[in-house]
């Protein structure tokens, strides 16, 4: 199973698990999900499931140690003679807990770093060595990793951190923790779940409800529509533009179109897969957190990242941004900065530094390459600039009596944000950072709409029929997004309609996938873009 949007998952694995799940007694149900999840990981990773076992066992034991240590600390406190001694006892236990927690987190993040980034670091080391004139090169290491290692490692870190901070209790049930760490719909592409939101619900799953089943299936169908009809269809042209731009003398207009189409492809692929993931969870009565909230309705880059890959953003906020901002050196920096820069700008240096850490991690999380680090840096600069300019622009708008809530201005900010996002994705999808800059140079220096009018855009793997199909699905996704923005649940809305309307909508969607899906002869389905993270 290389993808959730595959026959083997949708027509074999998922139905078998659902059937077994529905016939066994309630007590056995979580074990069915756990067994299915382990089979899923085994099918994708074989022997390398060992990495998952290591992570799960290590955080399980470390959390138990932390809990036991806290208990021992509580027991030892009454024997203390004064406050100083109490403080010393607390400090002694806290140090031990911190040591164990740090060790386990470093071991797991270190494992992730070795498996995913060692090639990148060695390749860069070799370049530096070569530049220095030395006559040796280190062979590039090759490691196989377990499926979803970047996702479950972050889940493991958040679980252990929350136990250490006392936000949640350590789980004594290894099965429950293992299910949280392995639940098959989320293991490959996320979302990154939190233990407190997911574990208990997964372990206490009820029998499949008809409504959950139909709603889950609808969500899955919508996800397939986005991925198979739009993302896979766009892939032909996007690949053509990004691979061949320098040999075909494309103008800036084509490069811009490529950046826009790649952004649409990425969104349709990733959000489509997440629809399948959430739909799969719904079938078993499990609510999986949303990872997208109409990101292209965002009016700023900050808002965009609150709507795009939401669970990754909140993870970085909780486990990188806050710990860095609240660290002693940063607190000191803020204190000093407040004296010199005032209350408004005082906290900014610490925040910007913490943001820098977040965006470095974000860039690296997306891939081992300078283009990904640049991708993180690009968004860091845009968000930081936005924060710096905001007080100034607010004052100016107030002075000019300009209403920022008016529709034309809102549309302008939405379009501006979308363009900035597309440019970032162009670097993200380029074949290396230097290629990204070359494309950007063509985009800026040779920009023209000529290719849009002379028919050139219809000769790069997509003809007018392809554009029509893609625009139709984008219009549907936009309409669904608009309903959600207005607080209407499209599926609840549909459920209230007459059965003929419901079936007409569903069969139109299914037949659109069958007929307009970009599969079979002449098409290469894109690999799940986030699956190897």
């Amino acid at each position, binding site marked *: *199973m290389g993808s959730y949007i595959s*026959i083997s998952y949708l*027509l*074999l694995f998922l139905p078998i698990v659902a059937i077994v799940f529905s016939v066994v007694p309630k007590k056995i149900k979580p074990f069915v999900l756990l067994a299915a999840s382990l089979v899923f990981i085994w099918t994708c990773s074989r022997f390398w499931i060992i990495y998952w076992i290591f992570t799960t066992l290590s955080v399980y034991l470390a959390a138990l140690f932390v809990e036991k240590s806290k208990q021992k600390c509580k027991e030892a406190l009454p024997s203390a003679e004064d406050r100083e001694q109490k403080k010393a006892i607390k400090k002694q236990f806290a140090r031990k807990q911190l040591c164990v927690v740090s060790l386990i987190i470093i071991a797991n993040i270190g494992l992730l770093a070795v498996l995913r980034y060692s090639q990148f670091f060695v390749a860069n080391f070799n370049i530096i060595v070569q530049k220095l004139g030395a006559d040796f090169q280190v062979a590039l290491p090759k490691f196989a990793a377990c499926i979803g290692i970047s996702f479950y490692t972050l889940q493991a870190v958040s679980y252990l951190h929350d136990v250490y901070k006392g936000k949640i209790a350590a789980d004594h049930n290894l099965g429950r923790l293992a299910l949280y760490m392995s639940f098959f719909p989320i293991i490959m592409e996320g979302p990154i779940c939190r233990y407190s939101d997911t574990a208990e619900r997964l372990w206490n799953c009820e029998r499949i409800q008809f409504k959950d089943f139909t709603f889950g299936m609808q969500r899955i169908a919508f996800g397939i529509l986005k991925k198979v009809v739009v993302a896979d269809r766009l892939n032909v042209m996007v690949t053509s533009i990004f691979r061949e731009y320098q040999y075909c003398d494309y103008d800036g207009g084509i490069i811009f179109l490529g950046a826009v189409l790649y952004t649409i492809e990425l969104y349709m692929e990733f959000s489509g897969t997440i629809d399948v993931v959430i739909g799969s969870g719904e079938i078993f009565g499990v609510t999986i957190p949303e990872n997208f909230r109409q990101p292209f309705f965002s009016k700023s880059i900050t808002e965009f990242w609150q709507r795009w890959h939401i669970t990754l953003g909140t993870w970085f906020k909780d486990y990188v941004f806050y710990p860095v901002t609240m660290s002693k050196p940063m607190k000191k920096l803020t204190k000093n900065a407040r004296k010199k820069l005032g209350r408004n700008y005082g906290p900014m240096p610490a925040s910007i530094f913490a943001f820098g850490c977040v965006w470095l991690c974000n860039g690296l999380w997306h891939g081992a390459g300078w283009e990904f680090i640049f991708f993180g840096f690009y968004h860091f600069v845009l968000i930081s600039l936005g924060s710096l300019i905001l007080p100034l622009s607010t004052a100016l708008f107030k002075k000019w009596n300009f209403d920022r809530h008016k529709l034309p201005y809102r549309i302008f900010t939405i379009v501006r944000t979308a363009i900035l996002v597309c440019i970032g994705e162009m670097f993200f999808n380029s074949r290396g950072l230097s290629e990204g800059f070359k494309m950007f140079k063509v985009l800026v220096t040779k920009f023209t709409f000529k290719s849009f009018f002379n028919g050139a855009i219809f000769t790069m793997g997509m003809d007018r029929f392809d554009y029509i199909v893609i625009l139709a699905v984008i219009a549907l996704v936009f309409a669904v997004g608009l309903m959600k923005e207005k607080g209407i649940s499209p599926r609840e809305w549909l459920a209230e309609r007459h059965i003929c309307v419901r079936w007409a909508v569903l069969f139109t969607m299914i037949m659109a996938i069958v007929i307009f899906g970009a599969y079979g002869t*002449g*098409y290469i389905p894109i690999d799940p873009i986030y699956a190897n993270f």
Partner: protein
Amino acid sequence: MKEKISRSTIKKIIASVLFVVFGIGLLGIASFCFTPERFHTDSVKDVKPYGVLAEPENTLDAVIFGDSEAFSAFSPVQMWQEHGFTSYVCSSASQYISLTESFVRQTLEHQKPKVIFLETNAIYRKMNTDNPTLAEAEKIFPVFQYHNLWKNLDPAGINENEDDYCWQDDLKGFKYIDIINPSRNPDYMKKTKAVKKVPGSNLTHVTNIYNLCKESGVELVLVSAPSTINWNYAKHNMMVKLSKQLGVKYIDLNVEKLGLNWNHDTCDRGDHVNYFGATKVSKFFGDYAAKTFSLPDRRKDSAYSDWNALKEKYDDVTARSKTK
């Protein structure tokens, strides 16, 4: 209450069954509409391999099957102009060997070529469980196979004679690409004794293709198109071994002297040859095929006058290369 619950359950079961039945019915209707004979148009990229079904019955002397390596390397029109035998390249990008088997089966229902060439790159394409499942589904509901023809759907053609395939590909399956993107590893065929194994059940499909050819009295030949990225000596060794096992001929164009210039004759750093490379490959391969299998020269045969008329169209398409 109990009665109410059971009634609602029965209602749900009936609705679910009806939904499935209705869905199957729709797939059946779509399958009826989506068969190649319903379409007539200038062929487009996605439907090129189906063009082989549009060729008049028993008119092809040779058919080449495979993936993108095949459609970028072999030009049937050039081989016709130089040797006078008819051929077609029935290939598509990233074609799985299970699909190749399906194409061979369908082609042999309409054609009786003297020789079938199987380009070997597709033999190495790793299949997942989806490919055979989709192939089975395609047999029941052809819409899964032919759905990409929707762009060419002609409502007027629905009642036409089912055997009247009405569109043909002017390049006979060949894809014209004039991009020049030099290879970075022109010395890719380094001799080794290593043998690169064929993945999974792919050999079963090759054996099925061999059996299909044998049953139809058609000679099967394995052929490897030049590619500095996809081919190497370990794969060559495996194909030598496989050809001996099957008792078929094998020609590896990666080790033959074709005069390819990998700085000029490839469109994607050696992955595929471009038009310039294809011209050299087709010249060599045309000579080999015509001589080895004594393929007939039909250029003066009035029944094949359509093929002579292709020259003008071929020259139109390839005219752009003269400026490069």
